[in-house]
């Protein structure tokens, strides 16, 4: 690509293959065309559907505002792509530059983008996971199936895991008047992402909305009836909850198995890539023709000590896809780093929750505005004397200000006199994150050290 015209040839008549036809894959493809890529573009996706948006699946769809089949993503432009939908990629030959598909086809590429995302971690006991009435929520089909069951008027829904998805499901059920029990292994909901101080607020919110919230318990077994329908969940405290619907919300597993043996630095933690989205091979050498974006990627972030971050965030998928697409078509001097400041939102129990930075790196939290008791506040997270993250409950308009503090590595606690400060916000307190070696439902940001080909990961499912 050194000014020998090959980049020009790539742009004119090259072959780009995108594996994973969802948010990151679609946005990357659009960006490639916007940047003038005129060659052939192939979109490979194992789901039969055109790219759709996942956040509504646990919000608008469960609330009945829309249906799961009406969540397709809008297009920024025509793609003129060859779509291979309903076909999984099953292998990669890096030397021959080919992707193998489940139907036996092989697709050659000059540049490959991997955006295979994650999938819901299933209930670990297969016989129990297969009971009728046991669901996960990741795909359009999952959401449609769960919504159908909710429409039947179940007596109770039992949610395992109080991360964002589990909490949103509980919220939607309550809004529909359905009885809900939530079981969480940690001391409170959302602790993996936001820590125990904010988790306690989330717990109050749930209880106030009538959720039967059980924390610091594990689900030991799911029990079915003679017809194979789930009828009860057994908990580690010896109690039993009768239920007709169980939703397993134990976080996600990265879709990297299809790359096993390919030589790419891909494993259970995702695919390691540099800040320019180029994938590492298992030797720790960066490739120049394979790029990664979205939930499946983990990449070093200069603002966070160059640690590899895996971000299961909508905004990250969009931004990283655009950077990857840009870099695929650029000379090395023109490449851009993916330096997006992590951000996500959730809405549950009528509260708008938004976050910037990496709260889960924080050791301390300061309630800088509003108050925890009103459940309207901004919590600022500190790590080694600097501002590292912030979360807002119904205070979203202030977050850009805190994002600026994170970007400029402002000191923590912030030195300026804080506006609208209440008694519980005057000094930093321990943010109370659980021991990271004891994962709960899986936080939405994972820090995974430095080694590109790091395959060491232990996960203890919360059962």
């Amino acid at each position, binding site marked *: 690509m050194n000014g020998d015209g090959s980049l020009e040839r790539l742009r004119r008549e090259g072959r780009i293959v995108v594996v994973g036809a969802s948010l990151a894959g679609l946005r990357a493809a659009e960006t490639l065309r916007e940047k003038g890529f005129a060659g052939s573009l192939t979109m490979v996706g194992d789901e039969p559907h055109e790219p759709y948006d996942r956040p509504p699946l646990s919000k608008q769809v469960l609330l009945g505002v829309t249906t799961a089949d009406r969540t397709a993503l*809008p297009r920024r432009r*025509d793609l003129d792509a060859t779509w*291979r939908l309903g076909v999984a990629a099953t292998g990669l030959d890096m030397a021959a530059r080919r992707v193998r598909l489940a139907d036996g086809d092989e697709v050659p590429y000059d540049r490959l983008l991997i955006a295979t995302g994650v999938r819901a971690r299933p209930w670990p006991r297969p016989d129990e996971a297969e009971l009728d009435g046991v669901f996960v929520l990741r795909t359009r089909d999952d959401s449609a199936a769960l919504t159908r069951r909710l429409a039947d008027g179940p007596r109770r829904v039992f949610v395992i895991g109080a991360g964002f998805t589990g909490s949103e499901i509980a919220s939607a059920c309550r809004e529909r008047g359905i009885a809900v029990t939530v079981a969480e292994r940690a001391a409170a909901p959302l602790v993996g992402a936001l820590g125990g101080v904010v988790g306690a607020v989330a717990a109050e919110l749930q209880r106030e909305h009538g959720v039967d919230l059980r924390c610091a318990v594990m689900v030991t077994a799911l029990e079915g009836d003679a017809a194979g329908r789930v009828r009860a969940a057994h908990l580690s405290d010896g109690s039993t909850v009768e239920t007709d619907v169980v939703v397993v919300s134990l976080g996600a597993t990265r879709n990297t198995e299809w790359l096993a043996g390919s030589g790419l630095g891909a494993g259970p933690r995702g695919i390691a890539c540099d800040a320019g989205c180029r994938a590492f091979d298992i030797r720790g050498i960066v490739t120049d023709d394979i790029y990664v974006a979205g939930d499946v990627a983990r990449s070093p972030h200069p603002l966070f000590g160059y640690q590899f971050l895996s971000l299961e965030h909508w905004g990250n998928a969009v931004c990283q896809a655009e950077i990857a697409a840009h870099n695929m078509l650029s000379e090395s001097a023109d490449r851009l780093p993916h330096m997006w400041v992590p951000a996500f939102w959730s809405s549950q129990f009528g509260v708008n929750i938004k976050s910037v930075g990496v709260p889960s790196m924080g050791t301390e939290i300061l309630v800088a505005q509003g108050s925890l008791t009103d459940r309207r506040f901004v919590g600022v997270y500190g790590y080694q004397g600097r501002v590292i993250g912030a979360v807002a409950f119904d205070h979203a308009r202030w977050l850009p200000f805190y994002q600026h503090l994170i970007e400029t590595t402002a000191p923590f606690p912030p030195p300026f006199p804080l506006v609208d400060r209440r008694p519980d916000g005057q000094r930093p307190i321990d943010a109370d994150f659980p021991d990271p070696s004891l994962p709960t439902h899986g936080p939405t940001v994972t820090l995974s050290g430095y080694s590109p080909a790091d395959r060491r990961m232990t996960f203890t499912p919360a059962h």
Partner: protein
Amino acid sequence: MRLVVDLNRCQGYAQCAFLAPEVFAMHGEEALLYHPEADAAQREKLAQAAAACPVQAILVDAVDAPPEAVSDER
């Protein structure tokens, strides 16, 4: 007509809910809840809402019906 709102960007100003109430609504004090697929009859209002959003968070389909939307279930 498909649409998506970048809710990282959205500041809950509710202009959209005012201009196209059939598509956008506030849910609680500041969370936005929207229809990801709006009726064609909403085209005009939706365009107004997208244009009025102070942070340009609303993305509306630029393409009517992409071919892959209707076929290709190999």
